[in-house]
Each structure stands twice: as C-alpha cells, then as structure tokens.
C-alpha cells in the first residue's frame, strides 16, 4: 500500500517513495521537507566515504538538571543518534572534506557542550590538516539544560572559526530549516560562504519571541532563507539537488595551491 505525505505548502499528497527519491523535496512546489542526518550524508559524500568521528561521545549533565538524562536517552532511542550533531571525514567529488551535520530531530538540534566541542574539534582539525569544513546547520539554539556551559559553546565554536580564518582553509556553512538562537549567533553566521536551503527559517530570536516584542504579526517571508539573502546574510539559496555540485565548485575555487 502506498504511503502518502501531504505537502504543508501546496497541500498536494505525495507518495512517500516519490518524495524519498526526490531527496524529500516536494516535486510540485519545491518545499524542502526535513532531511535526516544519514540521508544528508549519503547525499553529500562520495559513496561509502564518510567516516564518523567521536561517534561514541555522549552529553553529560553538568547542572544536574532533573530529567535531562532521561530526555537524552529518549531522543537517542528515537533518532538513533548520540546527540544533535554527527561529525566525520569524507570525500566530495574526490576532494577530502570534514563534515558536520546537525540533527534537528535530536532535542531541536540544540547546542550543548558536546555539540560545541565536536564542531570545534572538526574546525581545528580542518585548520591543521588543510581540509575544507562543511557544516549543515539545524538548531533551535542553546541547550538550556546545560545552562551557562551551553552559552559558552557560542564562544568556543566562534573562536575555532577565528583560528580557521588565520589559515587558508575554508568554512562552508549550509543553513537548513530551522537555524536560530545561539547557533545563528556563532559559527553558522561565520562561514566564508553561507548557503541555505530554500525556505529555511534563519534568525537569532525566534518568530514568536519577536512577535511578542513588537506586538504585531511578522511580514510574510520574514527570516526565511530568501529574506536573509536579500538582507545580505546568505550568499546563495541552493536547492537540495544542487547542493553537492555547488559545494564541489566552492571547494575547487577556494583551493590555495601554495598554502603559505
């Protein structure tokens, strides 16, 4: 029996297999559905080239918040991931890359100490080994259960970009739906090139918070990828099907032959 999925934008019913074969993009209106971490890795990396790093690491409970560990376990079981980011090395059209893919389905892609550390480590490895770093972002912001430690990951990841910036190793950021909060106010805004999937919500404050502040409805398209491009913060909005070739072009054109 066919499983049908309804597109939230054009409301068309789509066969789940058709959707899956189309990279979870609505064939009718180009709406980009949620793309799971493992699907993303397959889509971006050359076949079987991805080797995960730090896959065994798990989050601690530094503030000893009640229920946090249970919550982590629940999300682990549900998503089959240890936390909200998967990192590793791979090749993309034959070029070595380091790749981080954030998982919005793991506690809203929130950044705790583990997420911050794993991403930081990848950037520093990239800087040392002269290998471009690509980060697919998806996050609701800081992991509040880790309190101030979570906030400090903004400084930690940003300082890693500072180190990369002193080398000739590029950082390519891809913003996917949604990227908000502390991730937007740190590494996600600091790519040498920043791409976005169409329609992705990107901002520091979430729309509900802003609506609460200003007391009126937000304009149509506010904080979406296309809005962020028109306001100067996204280099290009790229369809999922073109993402690998776009990244490949960027890797090629950011290669410095004589690495001084």
């Amino acid at each position, binding site marked *: 029996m066919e499983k049908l999925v309804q597109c939230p934008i054009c409301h068309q019913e789509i066969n789940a297999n058709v959707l899956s074969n189309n990279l979870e993009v609505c064939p009718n209106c180009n709406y980009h559905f949620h793309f799971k971490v493992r699907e993303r890795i397959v889509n971006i990396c050359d076949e079987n080239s991805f080797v995960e790093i730090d896959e065994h*690491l798990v989050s*601690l409970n*530094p*503030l000893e*918040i*009640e229920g946090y560990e249970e919550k982590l376990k629940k999300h682990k079981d549900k998503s089959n991931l240890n936390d909200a980011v998967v990192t590793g090395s791979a090749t993309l059209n034959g070029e070595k890359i380091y790749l981080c893919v954030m998982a919005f389905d793991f506690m809203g892609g929130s950044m*705790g*100490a*583990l997420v*911050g*550390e794993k991403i*930081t*480590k990848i950037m*520093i*490895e990239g*800087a*040392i080994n002269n290998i471009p770093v690509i980060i697919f972002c998806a996050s609701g912001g*800081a992991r*509040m*259960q*880790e*309190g*101030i*430690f*979570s*906030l*400090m*990951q*903004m*400084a*930690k990841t*940003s*300082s890693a*970009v*500072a*180190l990369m*910036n*002193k080398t000739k190793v590029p950082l390519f950021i891809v913003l996917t739906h949604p990227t908000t*909060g*502390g991730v*937007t*106010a*740190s*590494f*996600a*805004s*600091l790519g040498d090139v920043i791409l976005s999937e169409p329609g992705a919500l990107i*901002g*520091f*404050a979430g729309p509900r*918070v*802003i609506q609460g*502040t*200003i007391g009126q409805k*937000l304009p149509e398209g*506010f*904080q979406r990828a296309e809005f962020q491009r028109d*306001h*100067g*913060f996204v280099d290009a909005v790229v369809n999922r099907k073109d993402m690998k070739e776009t990244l490949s072009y960027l890797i090629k054109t950011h290669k410095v032959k004589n690495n001084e």
Partner: protein
Amino acid sequence: MSKIELKEMSERLSRVDKYTKKRTPWECVKLSRNINRPGVEDYIKLICDDFMPLCGDRLYGEDKAMLGGIGLIDGRAVTIIGNRKGSNLKENIDVNYGMSHPEGYRKALRLAKQAERFNRPIISFIDTPGAYPGLGSEERGIGEAIATNLKEFSTLSVPIISFIIGEGGSGGALGIGVSDKLYLLENAVYSVITPEGFASILMHDPSKAEEAANIMKMTAQDLLEMEIIHGIIKEDKDGAHVNPEFSASEIKKTINKDLNILTKKKPDSLVRYRLKKIRSIGASKEQESYSEPLLKVLQKIY
C-alpha cells in the same frame, strides 16, 4: 602570626561582615535588575580620571544602548565598552532597556579593534537582558553581529577584562564578554536564558521563575565554583546601589591588579591562554584529551 597580620585579618573579617550577605538566586535576580543599581556610566565616573565617549559603528548607526569610549584609569589608557540601561524610565526607553541592535555590537567591535591597534586594554561592563529581539535587529543581522564579536574578541591581542555588573543575559551579554578575566558582582547573574524563559520553556510554567533560578546556577558563587568566572566583586551588603563607591573601588583594584600582569604578557601567549580557556569550558574528561590538536594549531598560528 604577627600582630600586624592578626590586625589585617580581623579587619578583613569585619569587612566581609559588612559587605557580604548570603542571598537566594532569585533575590540576586531581582537585585541585578534593580533600577537604582549602578550602571556602566556610574562606574566610569568612579573609576576613570577622564573618559571620552566615541560613537558609531561606521556602517549604520549609533546605538545608545552600547556605550563605548576611551578612559584613563590611574593614567593608563583603556577602551571601555558597556551596556547602558538607564536609571529612570525616560533613560530606559532612550537606551532600549539595555538591549542593543547589531550596530551596538559592531560599534563595540570597531572600538575593540581600535584598542588593539593602539595597544589599549579593553574593559567591558555587561548589564543587559539580551540583544534586542525586534524586526530591525533581525533584518540587520543581530546573529551575525554577535557571532563576529565572539570570533574577533577571541583573538584580540590586547588584554580584555569583563565585569558583569547586573544582568548577564545570554548571547547579548556574551557579545561583549569574551575576555581574559571575567568577574561577576556579588549580586549579578549570568545565564543562557532568563529564569522566566527557562521556567516557561522547560517547566511549562512561567510563574516558576524562582524555582528555575534555583536550579540554573546563575549566581556569582555558582559560576565561580563551575570555573566560568575568575572572581566575585564585593558589594555593600544591601546591594551595589547603596554604596556604588565601594564596588567601584573593588573593580578598580581588580583592573589594576590584572592589567599589571596581563599587559606584561606577550600577545601570542595572551591569546593562546584565552583560547585554551574558552576551549576547556564544558568539555568532559574524555573530551579533554582532544585539546591536543588545539595546541598544535595554536603553535602553528601564533
């Protein structure tokens, strides 16, 4: 123990008596937001021989919520940046309750870069509920502005000392808070979200803010124990607003003491130390073994 030492100790104890009072986290939250609490301008007046405010980000605007300028502390030139909150309703409105737009953070960065070039240490006074979550702020890239500050401050080659004097609210506070030395005033707070926000999101009940404050570890004492901050600046036992001169003098002593050490460090070792400290925060024992690559890249770059 000599007589002099005994006398000093008894003085110190009586002083502690006069100047400390154990408060609950929620009491600190309320005190940190007290409208009479001294702000950046009060401390500048009490600490500096002279001060000249400098305006603008050279890009879009002058954000009154972010004070910046050049001061002299005992004859030493420093760049000062800090959140202005205002001390009455009119001022509150004028400075947007201490909530900066992107231009405020970009102004702070401009002045920090100026400080770096002319070898002036940077002192930041943090007192904000957070960056402003409004239309213009988002349109002009508040996320980008804070991110860029975190990146740039982490490798500035001059000493940076930060004081959280009231509310240290989330990314908006951190945006001028990446530093070599970070202090909280005794009744100041520093957290990833307000207790109200924490209660509302994680406890599904905004009225549980007091309970939230209790578990969030946002007080000076908590943060010192977690090694997030380097020390606590004493206040009058009834709060800094009762005796701003006392806290100001403690701040000034701390600045002079730290700068005497930090300005002697070579820029590369200063930055290396700052980066290591940032890297270590929140890393588990297992994760710590991964600091080796950091050292490698630091040695390569600095």
